[in-house]
């Protein structure tokens, strides 16, 4: 199947000032990322704070322009942001992010907000709008009696559902969800995740699901990409990556998720802290924290390589020349 959305070698560098009078230093927020998502598929993106997940999400929608590389939607290059062509396309690609209160207008009832995209994109005749809004509300599990409520009169989970209903109003083909359930309690989180999954399965939407919560990603994504300091360091199907993570960072990440009832002992605990993105370590950016690091890791950047069917990793030791040199040396 042809990908619905495709990114090739995306680059985004931010200039940030260190301190009030400090020099500006470039942060390579997204540094050579490629990915593809087909219709009906969910790609999960995980990684530590500052690894570039949100920036990547915005770039996929053309909100944050790529400085190099390109995004293709339905096989065609993404039009420049702000153009009429791009705005038309935006109806087909929607963003849901973490804070539903910020995404909603506090002066409008949720019916008005869910109906807004229908009006803006003139999608359906006025007389059918109310019926479509009611249908959308039912689809995300909001009750008809909540239609006239304002955002602050809803719970966090209900607000997020209103945001999702609005995102779905224009019948998008792609949904980019940036930490959509992170602010919600577990019991409510499960409700919203189920809503997203059902809607996606029913409508064959392609979804990019960004989250730092591996447990949630495990249960919603078909495939998972792990980011570290702006790069994808491992990608595989959700079943495979959580069962047998290969990259040392993925291993640490998966092992650090507290499983209720599982003791802390035996977990892989990394030494050191994530580096400052403006002072990206040489070679493999993970090497200062990596238990496997060798000399080559300090000097040369590992490329993302195939390490099995449908899975890739960027690591000299588990997926590189060093891996084969090592086996040779052991044989000798």
């Amino acid at each position, binding site marked *: 199947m042809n990908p619905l959305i495709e990114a090739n070698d995306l680059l985004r560098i931010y200039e940030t000032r260190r301190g009030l009078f400090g020099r500006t230093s470039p942060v390579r927020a997204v540094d050579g990322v490629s990915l593809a998502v087909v219709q009906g598929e969910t790609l999960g993106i995980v990684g530590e704070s500052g690894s570039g997940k949100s920036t990547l999400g915005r770039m996929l929608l053309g909100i944050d322009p790529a400085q190099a590389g390109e995004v293709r939607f339905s096989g065609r290059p993404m039009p420049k942001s702000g153009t009429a062509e791009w705005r038309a396309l935006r109806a087909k690609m929607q963003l849901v992010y973490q804070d539903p209160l910020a995404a909603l207008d506090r002066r409008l009832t949720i019916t008005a907000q869910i109906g807004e995209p229908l009006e803006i994109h003139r999608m359906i005749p006025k007389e059918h709008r109310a019926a479509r809004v009611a249908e959308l509300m039912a689809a995300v599990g909001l009750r008809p009696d909540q239609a006239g409520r304002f955002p602050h009169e809803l719970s966090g989970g209900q607000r997020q559902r209103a945001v999702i209903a609005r995102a779905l109003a224009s019948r998008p083909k792609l949904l980019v969800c940036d930490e959509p359930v992170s602010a919600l309690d577990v*019991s409510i989180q499960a409700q919203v995740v189920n809503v997203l999954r059902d809607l996606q399965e029913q409508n064959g939407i392609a979804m990019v699901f960004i989250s730092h919560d591996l*447990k949630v990603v*495990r*249960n919603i994504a078909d495939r998972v990409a792990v980011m570290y300091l702006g790069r994808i360091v491992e990608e595989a199907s959700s079943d495979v990556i959580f069962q047998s993570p290969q990259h040392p960072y993925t291993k640490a990440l*998966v092992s650090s998720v*507290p499983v209720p009832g599982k003791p802390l002992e035996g977990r892989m605990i990394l030494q050191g802290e*994530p580096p400052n993105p403006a002072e990206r370590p040489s070679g493999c950016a993970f090497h200062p924290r990596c238990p496997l690091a060798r000399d080559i890791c300090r000097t040369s950047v590992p490329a993302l390589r195939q390490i099995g069917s449908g899975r890739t990793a960027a690591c000299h030791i588990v997926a590189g020349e060093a891996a084969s040199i090592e086996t040779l040396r052991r044989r000798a």
Partner: protein
Amino acid sequence: MGSANPNLVELRDLKVTFDGVEVLHGIDLDVARGEALGLVGESGCGKSVTWLAALGLLPGKAAVTGSVRVDGRELCGARRSALEEIRGGRIAMIFQDPSSSLNPVLSVGRQIVEALRLHRGLRGGAARAEALRLMDMVGIPDPPRRFDLYPHEFSGGQCQRLMIAMALAGQPDLLIADEPTTALDATIQAQILDLLNTLRAETGMALVFISHDLGAVSQVCERVCVMYAGRIVEEATVAQLFSEPRHPYTRGLFDAIPRIDAPRQRLLPISGTVPNPKHLPEGCSFSPRCPRAVDACGRERPPLTPLDDGRRLACTRPVPLAASRRRIPQGVMQ
């Protein structure tokens, strides 16, 4: 008194009211010397307010009643000076609110030295040496070189370590850590949990660990209290709670946590939402959301009652033992 009583802290019928709305409805809770107790529950259930009230740290508009005893000494209504002696000395708290964390305009070394002066009367070279020892203890690499740095020169995880170092300055008998890892990345969270375990083993202090993450709680605590809408609804050892949750809410919480070590599956939410403290349901507060509720649940509120197996439970129709065993987490049974 003192040493005959194994309990360091005893809360009795602790109630808190804000602007005429009661949000904490009578908490009875003991913390034994040296134990690690977890407090879990969803946002707004009263985890933070319980301990802020106990230590007299709520704003003036909060009305607090009940009894708070530390080593048998009553704190509720005690003089300010008595409270201050206990806080930071016997009991230290790491706050959830990030704004109350480190002072951005003072070097971290000076902040720890100040805490040492306040709680232990240390000054000069002795204070500095002790501050360096604390920084080293919480895992700050190369303390002498970093003593004079400011908070913004440390990462989030390191700031949390420094907060812990300041809390340890008074050599507390009890450390209350309110969501100490929530804002941190997963790999850093694991480091901090590990640190808390190590420190407890080294110092023998008791720990109250407040979190909405049952997974994190199971890794540092021996006993857990589950709170719902301003009340404790179940209290048990970690092993009991994780192998056989008896309160339908506890069970619901476990079921709602997505699993990472199982095939992809549909999640099991708890229906409905947490009640507004202004309009609490009659009877058991959980009854409108409870899959096991019977008519009586909506009329009478079940009190928190001790069971034969040592746990405490507030439920008219608890999850039957056999059924509650359905999902046995791996680690507990090994």
